[in-house]
């Protein structure tokens, strides 16, 4: 209607929209490692029943999804695929990072092939810690995201304010690469392999 992008959305209408959005989250399951099974237990099993929270774990494509749950170890080979996935999702989009590996590298913090945290590639809204987190923990993460959506200013989000933007991620990537380049120059002769 043009109200959102012009930033003239009345407050009651914002709240109504936000409530609608928070209770109809279509979640795309990006299951990678151990956490994928716990995510499957949370989203697919009768015991935890995620649909009572208004989350629909069914979209067959990221192009129909509001939320993606990245669950599991992200390797440097997988990282570009995840970035492309994120770019395909329509705005407004949210990301839950599930498990220690997706948060920061987890038990593979020193591995040569694991990306140390998906927040180096895409912005993350909620981090769920654990290795792997229990299904209840993931549900808690979903509830936290819903609360965040309820308090969101849609106009600000539309203008790219008020949430982590890709510029921030790019800046962080640049800083990390600079640091590593500096280290390798100092060490001289050590074969340095960085994939970013």
């Amino acid at each position, binding site marked *: 209607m043009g109200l959102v992008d012009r930033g003239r959305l009345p407050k009651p209408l914002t709240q109504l929209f936000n409530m609608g959005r928070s209770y109809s989250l279509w979640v795309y399951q990006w299951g990678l*490692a151990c956490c994928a099974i716990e995510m499957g237990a949370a989203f697919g*099993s009768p015991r935890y029943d995620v649909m009572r929270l208004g989350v629909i774990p069914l979209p067959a494509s990221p192009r129909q999804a509001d939320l993606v749950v990245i669950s599991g170890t992200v*390797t440097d080979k997988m990282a570009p695929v995840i970035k492309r996935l994120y770019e395909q999702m329509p705005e407004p989009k949210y990301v839950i990072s599930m498990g220690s590996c997706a948060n920061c590298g987890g*038990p593979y913090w020193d591995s040569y092939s694991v990306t140390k945290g998906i927040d180096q590639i895409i912005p993350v809204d909620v981090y769920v810690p654990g290795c*792997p987190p229990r299904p209840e923990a993931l549900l808690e993460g979903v509830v936290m995201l819903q609360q965040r959506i309820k308090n969101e200013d849609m106009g600000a989000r539309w203008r790219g304010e008020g949430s982590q933007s890709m510029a921030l991620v790019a800046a962080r990537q640049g800083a990390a690469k600079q640091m590593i380049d500096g280290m390798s120059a100092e060490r001289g002769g050590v074969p340095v392999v960085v994939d970013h």
Partner: protein
Amino acid sequence: MTLLGDRQQLSYIASQAADARVNLELETEGMTLNIGPQHPATHGTLRIIARLDGEQVVWVDPSCGYMHRGYEKLTEVRTYPQVTALVNRIDWLGSFANEVPFILAAEKLMGIEAPLRAQHIRTILFELSRIANVSLFLGDLGVQLGAITPVFMAFRDREYVLNLIEGATGGRFHPNFDRIGGLKDDLPAGWLDETRTVMKKLRRFCDEIEDLLFGNEIFQSRTRGIGVIPRDIALQYGMSGANLRASGVDWDLRRDQSLPMAWDKVDWKVWTHPDGDSFARCWVRLQEVRESTRIVEQLVDTIPAGPVMTKVPRIIKVPEGEAWVCTENPLGEMGYYVVSQGDLGPFRVKIRSASFNNMSITPWLLKGVYVPDIVTILASLYFILGDIDR
């Protein structure tokens, strides 16, 4: 031959050739089909590039590595107890079973042996992780064929087993319960009775799955005679576990080698199937879950009293030497070749995981099958990406 080194150019030429190919008799056209790296049929992050002639597969390239975490390198910078925590995550559905061969290899090098009660508990937990693993396979099998119900049943009944594992070890998914020289703790009170009840539930689950899935005509016609692996080929590729036994090889590492575990103290049967097709592989796995429930029940009845930990030094140093220990894990033969140089951590660990060998047959096996059969054959081979890529 000169082009072989340049992968991108090679695959470009091959895909061009496949796309341009036209079968004049059947009037079919070639095309390249990409499945993955994130696709439900690939159980995670496997990518399969298939060149098709109409509906038939001409050439297949499974591209793995999307879950490669560099285990063998990481073990070299960790101490032995830290490695145990790490190897849990190789085959994430049967975590406890991954710890056992590594611990046994370290114990072999140190010349110690766990007490009898610890051996029994290890075997019980090993079989429980097999049940938790393979029951999810049986549920997932239905999904791959378009039946949604079995996976809900599998998740429902698997929770009982996970609760048992959590009750005993404190970890629902990754127990990290095995220690060099025994176990971290004894079993909690009332655990054995609970186990008996759960085993009855699991056997009922097997009956349900057998009625619902294995007796189904669609299931049979989709799996019988599809993806046949002859005995000789299976051995050459180093296939193991139910995949090998479904090709008629009567070989089970639980029975055919002597390890300080409790399998030789109970009565159970190794199931084989002569057909070697997808149906045989699924059927053998179903029987194995049943046998596992029987093994657990007998071990629960005969578990001896005593300590669960033998005397080991506080800081574990493993003497110099090399050792190879393999066990019959839910997915097949899992082994660790541990080279120690008397340090706090291993010098080199070669992790032989079952799925890597089981999957290496796919370029041979998928040649000539139809596109829908790719999914059922992959499902019946049963791999876990963490186990392929390590």
